[in-house]
């Protein structure tokens, strides 16, 4: 793997061109561009995409924002579709129908709806079969494309349009699914959880590992959505930082079964600091709801301890 150089990385030609129709301040496009920067110069990619914001906004006929070959098939089958593409590459190479020097990588993007929920089976199948591909989930914790409905990635107590806060409701009742761990338990080559950091190094390094490790790889990238989370567009980097500093979204990797923590906050911040910035959790700060925040904190602590245990074991 190459040594990370911020300036060099940022000066690489964009593989997701500007001019697409994603919202200002959208975390998904920042994550996608970060992942694609890790492709080595000269290597080509086929990009897969589950139906979602990213797909409908970046390839609207007759315009595409993608510099590489791109395939969108449907919502629930990005894993299976790219397995087909990757297998075709193997077949064409084997049969001498592609020049030796043609080097393709296979990367598919899906939101948490297309990944944790409707595309879960297709993802699980593709990972278990060990296709040489990377599945990147841009996790914004709800079905944002259809208007902020809860997904199994939505955190507990979030106010969404299918778990609305009301007199009888404090938002979503369940904890979020820990998908990175579930995929790690598929015994795949590489799994990592990351988000947007100020130097973009963690995302770059993990993307490069994921792309250039042979076999199936999965990246779970926290990619905030200003519409769904209800924060000021310009605050995205602050939100991501708080997700890490509170250990709501720990950074880790699982490289051929070995768990490693990528970042440990010097002082773990209370979860209120992350929740307070977002309109979807506003109701938690009403007097009388202190126990809800305690419950949230307890779950963050439990998961953080569990992760530390896995990483200590190695």
């Amino acid at each position, binding site marked *: 793997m190459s040594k990370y150089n911020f300036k060099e990385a940022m000066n690489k030609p964009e593989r997701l061109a500007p001019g697409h129709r994603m919202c200002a301040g959208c975390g998904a496009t920042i994550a996608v561009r970060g992942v694609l920067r890790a492709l080595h110069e000269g290597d*080509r990619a*086929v990009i*897969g995409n589950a139906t979602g914001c990213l*797909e*409908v*906004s970046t*390839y*609207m*006929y*007759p315009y*595409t924002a*993608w*510099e*590489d*070959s*791109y*395939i*969108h*098939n*449907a919502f*629930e*089958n990005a*894993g*299976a*579709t*790219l*397995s*087909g*593409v990757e*297998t*075709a*590459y*193997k*077949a*064409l190479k*084997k*049969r001498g*129908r*592609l*020049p030796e020097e*043609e080097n*393709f990588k296979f990367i598919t993007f899906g939101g948490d709806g297309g990944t944790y929920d409707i595309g879960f*089976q*297709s993802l*699980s*199948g593709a990972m*278990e*079969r060990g296709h040489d591909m990377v599945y990147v989930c841009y996790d914004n914790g709800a079905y944002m494309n259809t208007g902020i409905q809860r997904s199994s990635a939505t955190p507990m107590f979030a106010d969404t349009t299918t778990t609305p806060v009301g007199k009888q409701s404090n938002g979503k009742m369940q904890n979020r699914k820990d998908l990175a761990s579930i995929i790690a338990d598929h015994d795949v080559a590489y799994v990592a959880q990351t988000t947007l950091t100020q130097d973009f190094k963690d995302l770059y390094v993990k993307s490069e590992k994921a792309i250039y490790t042979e076999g199936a790889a999965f990246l779970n990238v926290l990619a905030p959505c200003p519409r769904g989370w209800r924060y000021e567009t310009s605050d995205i980097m602050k939100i991501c930082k708080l997700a890490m500093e509170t250990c709501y979204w720990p950074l880790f990797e699982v490289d051929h079964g070995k768990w490693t923590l990528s970042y440990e906050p010097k002082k773990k911040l209370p979860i209120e600091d992350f929740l307070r910035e977002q309109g979807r959790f506003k109701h938690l700060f009403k007097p009388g709801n202190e126990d809800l925040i305690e419950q949230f904190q307890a779950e963050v602590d439990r998961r953080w301890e569990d992760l530390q245990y896995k990483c200590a074991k190695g």
Partner: protein
Amino acid sequence: MAIRDRMSGNEAVAFAIKQVNPDVMPAFPITPSTEIPQLVSTYIANGDCDTEFIPVESEHSSMSATIGAEAAGARSLTATSSCGLALMWEELLLAASNRMPCVLALVNRTLSGPININCDHTDGMGARDTGWIQIYAENNQEAYDNFIQAYPIAEDERVQLPVMICQDGFITSHAVENIELLEDDKVSSFVGTYNPQEYLLKPGEPMAMGPYSVSNYAMEARKNQELALEASKEVIVEVAKKYKELTGRGFELFEEYRTEDADYVMVIIGSAAGTAKQAVDDMRAKGKKVGVIKLRVFRPFPAYELAHALKNCKAVAIMDRCESYNGNGGPLGSEIMAGLYRERIYIEAVNYIYGLAGRDFTVDHVYAIFDELEDAVVNGKKPEQFKYIGLRDAMTR
């Protein structure tokens, strides 16, 4: 010299796949098509062909991966039956609308419920409006012959559409009969190499597939797809003629059996055509002027050709091995009647539903149907226009 052998329908299709040696085959097991991926896997394991097999986790994924592989520039296929085809439904539409010339070996089985593993055409007919070309076989020989013709039809630049090669579950797929096979080199030269114009892995020419399309563009895409399906008819006929030159076998859009002077004709799809032909022979021996049209190509639907093939008979029995729950008959019944009306051919037409979920269909049923048609014409007795045959009456209100 053709190779003489004995094979089931599934074995025949698997053998054809081995001979064509496509690039990629994703598949998921489902009765009664399971043997096809099993046999192909065995061919691969023994080095008899080197197709890349993907053992996917569902039929939705088998069609999704087939589309992915085909889009990437690989000749691809899958096989399925019944609920497997139903699970693929969304992807069938995408294969056709993305103009993927892939192939699906369908072994026709009824759909649940009640769950039942036996033959009818509910699965294939349920996919009739997905944009696929559908070719049905009477027996193992035709299943083999049709499969060899599938890619030359699908990949023709006038077509660029997916093709479904259909055979009847168990009746054809599992019954072992004599068969004539082509030599490998003849299959290779008939099918040719796959040279797509645009594909994801094309060196130096990245492409994007599967756009979001606004109303300003989407309708033209649909019309172009429809034009391609219309154009496929002449390609299907051309390929069938070429195949006949090579083998001496086969039919174009449908087979006409003893229909030249027939007063009464039965139109039927699949293995039951064999039963109908036997009954026709029996009745002809007694001087009855009866005949059979066996439909080979259901999509594109040869409405005009069928109407004109029927114009000189007095009555037609249209046989649907499928209920379409519209209160008005089966799919074949509706489409043939519409075709007759368009051509201003006003003959008596009765739509029969038969053989659902593997119910036996015998020569006695055929005799009775022809007798009913004759009774209607000669004695002016108007039969029910839409009726089930072979039902256990006591169980049916």
